[in-house]
């Protein structure tokens, strides 16, 4: 239903220990974020693209498509930073003055924007590496190990499961509405949607009571305890992570 989620369960790296994948993705992301140069993000982008496409076996087409998802936010925000409006036309590198108001870009702003653009893409590729290779259920156990409050991980388990249940319900309701000519006009769209929302909300109440009953039948006493299958820990992977991160960190430090 959600393509990122599907790949997380079917990629070639799914059996790798989730802690190893999380460490790799998060360290790289921080390295990318703290880099003073545009070279690091470019290397990170290449590294993650390689990991996602070659190692995890996710089609390159899918990866490229996913990289385009945040592009709308990115372009608009980066342009906002690059361009400014001012009544003082001095200091602009490229500008157009209309009516005493200058719209244009200053050189340092442009550099910030380009750097920001690449840095964000690099970080997003790290996020994708983690999301595309690691099943959510295992990520939640990583959070458990990090001593995130139990109530948060418990809620995450429930929310993750029921996202799909409610999404399916929402899809069928929407189809039923479409087949009865819902969403044909502005007014009918609002009517259709408000009913879809309230019908879903009704389900939330009914289903949660049913779930409580069925969990009580399995001796639920207030804490949701589960066992997760253990993945093998690989020393080799830790060595690879260290081998990849150290040069990147050195590059960051030496550039200063």
């Amino acid at each position, binding site marked *: 239903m959600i393509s990122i989620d599907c790949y997380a369960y079917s990629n070639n790296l799914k059996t790798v220990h989730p802690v190893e994948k999380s460490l790799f993705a998060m360290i790289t992301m921080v390295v990318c974020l703290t880099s003073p140069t545009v070279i690091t993000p470019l290397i990170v982008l290449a590294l993650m693209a390689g990991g996602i496409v070659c190692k995890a076996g996710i089609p390159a087409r899918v990866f490229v498509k996913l990289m385009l998802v945040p592009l709308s936010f990115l372009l608009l925000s980066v342009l906002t930073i690059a361009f400014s409006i001012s009544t003082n036309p001095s200091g602009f590198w490229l500008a157009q003055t209309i009516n005493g108001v200058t719209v244009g870009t200053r050189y340092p702003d442009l550099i910030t924007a380009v750097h920001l653009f690449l840095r964000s893409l690099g970080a997003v590729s790290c996020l994708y590496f983690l999301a595309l290779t690691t099943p959510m259920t295992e990520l939640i156990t990583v959070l458990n190990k990090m001593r995130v409050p139990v109530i948060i991980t418990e809620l995450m388990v429930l929310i993750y499961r029921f996202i799909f249940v409610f999404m399916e319900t929402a899809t*069928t309701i929407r*189809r*039923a509405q479409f087949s*009865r000519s819902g969403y044909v006009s502005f007014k009918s769209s609002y009517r259709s949607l408000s009913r879809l929302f309230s019908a879903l909300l*009704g389900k939330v109440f009914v289903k949660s009571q049913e779930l409580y009953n069925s969990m009580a039948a399995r001796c639920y006493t207030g804490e949701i305890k589960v066992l997760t299958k253990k993945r093998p820990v690989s020393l080799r992977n830790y060595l690879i992570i260290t081998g990849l991160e150290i040069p990147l960190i050195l590059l960051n430090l030496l550039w200063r």
Partner: protein
Amino acid sequence: MAELILEAVDLEYSYPDGTNALRKVNLQVQQGEKLAILGSNGAGKSTLFMQFNGIFRPNSGSIKYQGQDISYKSKELIELRKKVGIVFQDPDSQLFSASVYQDISFGPLNLGLSEEKVAERVKRAMKDTETTDLEDKPTHLLSYGQKKRVSIAGVLAMGPEVIIFDEPTAGLDPRHAREFMQLLEKLSIEGKTIILSTHDVDLAYSWSDQMAIMYRGEIIAHGKPGELLMRSEIVERADLTLPWLIEMHTELVKKRLAVSVYPFAENEGGFA
């Protein structure tokens, strides 16, 4: 009676996630027909139905309504959906409004009819489905059988020519299933074309005058129910069971207690 109303031509469809749902499906539906589509879960019955009123768009091939390829422009889609109504399997996802009256009026209101016209249609649909005394009830307090009836009323109120029922008797107890089949009979007499999907072979056998068997996205057989079900290899291939009448008959033929024509005329079968 012999006029084609709905037709699927070389229909191919796969879901966005790549699942192949329909493979070269060809199917003709005559006006006024009672067509049962048999198949196990996941055979593609529901997916095919969503094609019939344009909710899904085929990857290749086409749907014809009264001989014309259907168009996917929103105006023409409205016209099509007015003619071809679907009653979905789970009444809970079909009843999305708070009260029975509101829910039944949803379709007609979307068609842009005047309030009087809508009220009239709703009244008529409630009468036909015997839900008049439920009018003001909140939908979540209805029993399963009542919900099912209201969901049918919601489709009837749009005045469709063809009504498609997805697994209509699933979850209904025998008495409600019987009542439902009577309602279907009434609609059929009024001249509606009716298509239903089921994996209940007995029901399909006793009710339909045409039958199609689906298996893994393909229609593997289409014809008169009696003839179709005598070919037990098809039935087994589609993961179904034989209707008990035919099973009994086959046993009797084996033991030379009966002659080898197919048993009883259609519409005389067992339960339902």
